[in-house]
């Protein structure tokens, strides 16, 4: 089974939700899906294991044609159509051979398209994710473009559905203090920031300076570290962040909210709120429970599974 890329969109790459974790001591970034929770949701909806490779699309999405019928799922911040008909986000659908799926802009910056069986690219250094900056992993170490063909692996499990509609996550992004940063945490909490134009997979740069930035001894950077460079404009570090960084870290975005940061688009407004480590862990467990609460897409819902999205 293969998928042909008709249009690569702004930035579409093969990623997996877990990334490349074992080689960080040699400078290899974790990478993987920028919004790991949405990517895991897409995989589970398609009946894939959490670590299966899928497509991450940015802002405008891509157009893909499926050579054969396939079970496909969508999660994250973009919208999609199949042969021109809407494809409901956070669901899995069976699509017919020859169908064209097109991702378009939506409420967030990134959409995840999973195919039952996963995108079959070689595992490089323990992951199928694309390392875009130095060019390895994924599909030929680069973003997808027109004419690329992707191979899909054998399906592993049944497609799933969400029984509860997810409420749109709202409210400020929750942060815990960075190392030795209690005094500086106050500077980013309770005020509005604007997302800068250079938000990417490395990090989301905010436009407003809070001062208090500077250089420190380089240290390992966890996902969600909020760096304050000398210009005082916070940067929230995402999947492609360098392994170590030498700017002050004022806070860390909690795991349950990092996907929301990855969904911010240039120009969006964002606020932070202070949380305790205990609250962060509770929120993490809730997010895990939401993923665990999916149900098999049962036979009796055959109309859903048999939905082809074809024009009438």
């Amino acid at each position: 089974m293969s998928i042909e890329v008709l249009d690569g969109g702004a930035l579409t790459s093969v990623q997996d939700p877990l990334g490349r974790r074992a080689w960080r001591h040699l400078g290899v970034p974790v990478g993987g899906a920028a919004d790991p929770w949405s990517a895991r949701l897409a995989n589970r909806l398609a009946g894939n294991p959490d670590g299966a490779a899928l497509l991450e699309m940015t802002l405008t999405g891509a157009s893909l044609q499926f050579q054969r019928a396939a079970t496909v799922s969508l999660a994250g911040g973009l919208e999609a159509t199949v042969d021109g008909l809407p494809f409901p986000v956070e669901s899995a659908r069976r699509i017919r051979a020859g169908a064209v799926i097109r991702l378009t802009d939506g409420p967030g910056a990134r959409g995840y398209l999973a195919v039952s069986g996963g995108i079959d690219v070689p595992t490089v250094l323990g992951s199928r994710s694309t390392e875009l900056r130095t060019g390895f992993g994924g599909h030929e170490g680069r973003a997808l473009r027109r004419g690329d063909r992707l191979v899909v692996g054998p399906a592993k499990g049944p497609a799933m559905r969400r029984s509860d509609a997810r409420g749109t996550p709202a409210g400020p992004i929750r942060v815990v203090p960075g190392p030795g940063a209690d005094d500086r945490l106050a500077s980013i909490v309770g005020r509005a920031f604007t997302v800068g134009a250079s938000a990417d997979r490395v990090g989301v740069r905010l436009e407003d300076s809070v001062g208090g930035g500077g250089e420190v001894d380089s240290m390992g950077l966890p996902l969600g570290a909020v760096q304050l460079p000398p210009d005082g404009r916070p940067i929230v570090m995402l999947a492609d962040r360098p392994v170590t960084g030498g700017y002050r870290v004022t806070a860390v975005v909690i795991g349950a909210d990092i996907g929301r940061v990855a969904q911010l688009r240039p120009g969006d407004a964002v606020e932070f709120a202070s949380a305790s480590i205990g609250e962060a862990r509770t929120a993490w467990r809730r997010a895990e429970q939401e993923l665990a609460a999916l149900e098999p897409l049962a036979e009796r819902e055959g109309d859903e599974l048999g939905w082809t999205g074809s024009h009438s």
Partner: protein
Amino acid sequence: MIQPFGEHALLVELEGPDAARSLAASLERDPVDGVEAAIPGLGSVLVELTPPAGDRAGELGAQLADRVASLTLHEGGGRVRTIPVVYGGAHGPDLDRTAAVLGISADELVARHAATELQVLFCGFAPGFAYLGELPQGLRVPRLDTPRTRTPSGSVAVAGPMSGIYPAELPGGWPVIGRTPLLLFDARRDPPAYLAPGDTVRWEPIDHDGWSDRPRTADDW
């Protein structure tokens, strides 16, 4: 000092790079259950916990404190890696400027840099990029005012107390004084990087004509 770094990690602050990489190496050799990764920095180790282990962060912190207390420093210890370098010219576009900043001749800068044995303190920035230190006072210069958007693969650069080698074509703000023909990172190899924390780096100056004759891959990788 050990403190939380987000809900799934601890930051262990240590005396310096020798202690940091020794702790990371110790956790690699003799893993602690619940520790997913230990990433050394200049004077700290980021210890990432498997998410359920975050609930045991206090207990794990105590185990790490014990480990730190009984740490044996691995000074030296690593492999010796010899890096051939063409200094100056097209391969070292900032050599003359850097020498001027230091108030010495370009030849003197080459002689000093080539004679300085450095250690891989930690890795970061990009796959296979090793932070090499520490440079003596007489070789320390600030970063470029305007970073380059592209620095060629193999470029040998200096900034502050560190030297480094760009393992791929990357943007960069460090003055470039030379270039090595050696490949420093190859995702198809295991391990994928030629340099690792603890290794000792020696420089072997080669002339411009020697560049193309040199093998791209070191025979001891």
